[in-house]
């Protein structure tokens, strides 16, 4: 499992463990990965994130087209050997998306249940973003330039 | 090869052995039956015949082995179950006798001789006489396993081999985890037992210790309340067994 920020590890670990998920991916609604479990190739993570965010956006659009007052909440693909659960949820960092791939030893209901707990847990533990202040001190570019010259052999 | 291990039709040595047994020529009957067992080692009926001959000779231990061998060939062989019930009855173990007859009744529900025997055994047993508990007996229908799904002791009961007991243990540990989780997450507190009822069997799964659980398997005719009462005693026995181990 990999997470961008340490506080996400526990809720994501619980989601994976309790729902018997094979793969799990948590991303921002624009597809930026914030945590994953089970993927071995980074390229797959990126592609899955982009596709997952895209699918959810598309179904949201479809929901609007057919006159639904809100989006569909979750998208489920159920195959013979494994299923995919894809759902958005609100966090203090904005809307995020979770993608869970589960096998025959789990069920949609179980994934749904632990996804809801996961979303609630993220809402509870996610640090609220705070206002920023300037960081790069004066002289940064000069040091960068020196560092690049050293690294690139005076180039 | 199937034609070497189990004959297509009832072979003549069975008739011969049975006739010799009924005439009291037990030694001759036994030699015929044992020759047949050599020829057809997985043929249930020949082991059943040997069991009856040995029982007639008063060799209860030998008869028990033969009938257990019968059940290995055919897990629901009524003759072997009746034979084992008879041996239990003879040693006045009415609980065991009842258990084997219940299994025989499940295998042959229309056999009135079994139902009659069952009634008789039940009437012989004092109402509050506790059924004997032997955690290590593989045919007692008590399977003790650890939380990783490994068998610690016992088995699934008559007719089910060790391999099957191991498979059941492997699945039971997962079931216990789910039972524990379901009870906890639904706010029902600690789980006490999971009762699984089917057409052919009643099975109860109970926690014994943090690292161990017990699977109890009985025929569908076993009354649920009595099964649970027995299960409760079996859990205590299992705890003692774990302590001694």
């Amino acid at each position, binding site marked *: 499992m*990999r997470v*961008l*920020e340490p506080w996400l590890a526990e809720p994501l670990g619980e989601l994976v463990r309790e729902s018997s998920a094979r793969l799990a991916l948590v991303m*921002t609604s*624009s*597809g*930026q*990965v*914030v945590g*994953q479990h089970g993927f071995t*190739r*980074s*390229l797959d*993570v*990126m*592609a899955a*994130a*982009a*596709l997952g965010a*895209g699918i959810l956006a598309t179904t949201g659009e479809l929901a609007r087209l057919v006159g639904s007052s809100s989006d569909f909440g979750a998208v489920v693909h159920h195959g013979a050997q494994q299923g995919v659960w894809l759902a958005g949820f609100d966090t203090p*960092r904005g809307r995020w998306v979770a993608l869970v791939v589960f096998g025959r030893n789990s069920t949609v209901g179980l994934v749904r249940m632990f996804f809801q707990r996961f979303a609630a847990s993220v809402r509870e533990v996610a640090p609220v*973003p*705070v*206002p*920023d*202040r*300037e*960081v*790069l*001190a004066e*002289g*940064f*570019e000069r*040091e*960068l*330039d020196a*560092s*690049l*010259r050293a*690294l*690139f*052999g005076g*180039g | 090869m199937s034609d070497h291990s189990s004959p297509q039709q009832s072979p003549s040595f069975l008739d011969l052995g049975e006739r010799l047994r009924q005439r009291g020529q037990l030694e001759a009957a036994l030699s015929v039956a044992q020759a047949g067992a050599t020829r057809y080692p997985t043929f249930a009926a020949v082991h059943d015949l040997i069991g009856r001959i040995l029982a007639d000779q008063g060799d209860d231990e030998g008869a028990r082995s033969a009938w257990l061998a019968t059940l290995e060939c055919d897990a629901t062989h009524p003759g072997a179950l009746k034979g084992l019930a008879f041996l239990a009855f003879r040693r006045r173990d009415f609980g065991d006798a009842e258990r084997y007859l219940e299994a025989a009744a499940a295998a042959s529900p229309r056999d009135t001789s079994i139902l009659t025997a069952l009634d008789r055994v039940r009437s012989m047993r004092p109402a509050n006489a506790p059924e004997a508990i032997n955690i290590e007996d593989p045919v007692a229908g008590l399977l003790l396993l650890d939380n990783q799904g490994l068998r610690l002791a016992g088995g699934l009961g008559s007719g089910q081999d060790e391999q099957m007991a191991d498979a059941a243990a492997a699945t039971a540990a997962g079931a216990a985890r789910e039972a524990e989780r379901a009870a906890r997450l639904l706010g029902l507190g600690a789980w006490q037992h999971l009762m699984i009822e089917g057409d052919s069997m009643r099975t109860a799964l109970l926690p014994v210790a943090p690292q161990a659980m017990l699977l109890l398997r009985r025929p569908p005719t076993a009354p649920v309340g009595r099964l649970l009462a027995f299960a409760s005693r079996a859990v205590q026995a299992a705890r003692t067994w774990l302590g001694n181990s």
Partner: protein
Amino acid sequence: MPRCEHSSGEADVARIDQEKRTIGLTLLVVGARGAGKTTLLRTLRQRIPAERLRAGSAGESEPDPLLDWLTVDLGRIQDWQVTVDLYAIAPVSNRDSTRRLLFNDADGLWLLADSQGNRFDDNAATFRAAREHLVDREGSQRDVPTVYTWSKQDLPGELILAPDVLREGFVPGGAPAFEADLVRGTGVLESLHALVTLTMRRLAPSREPAG
């Protein structure tokens, strides 16, 4: 692929981790087929000390022809550890989702033009496509620091276009442009130097949590 290991939650900006004091830049190397993207990355691998290079597709037996990548550790600058992820993307690939994501996250663009006269249109089409891909998550056009490198300037003069012609043809405004001989490495490190500087300059004044 380093992206998901140390990225901030924000889109469209370099990854700045305030706790670990790290800055990660994503730079895209874009060029027409045969313009020399793979050679460029290979040259960087040869010229930059190995201890400053992190895992990249070079570690695999064969570079991925559709997506080659490389991470350079620029070391500690002030109290920040700065790394640069360089992705070389083929102009046409079946990995549109990957490409979209990379363009979304790009902090800087390194446009590589094949100097040969007969590749002028290919270069133009590739650069145009790159600009079309360079949109933010809401679909608005993004303006990111860009440098140009004219590859194959070592070929005979009758085959190639002069740097000022290429600049005239491709470079809007005053973006830096460098002539390069990718095999010998001329102009490569200079281009990267300029791009990193421009990109970091765009970050300043950058931000960190108050308090």
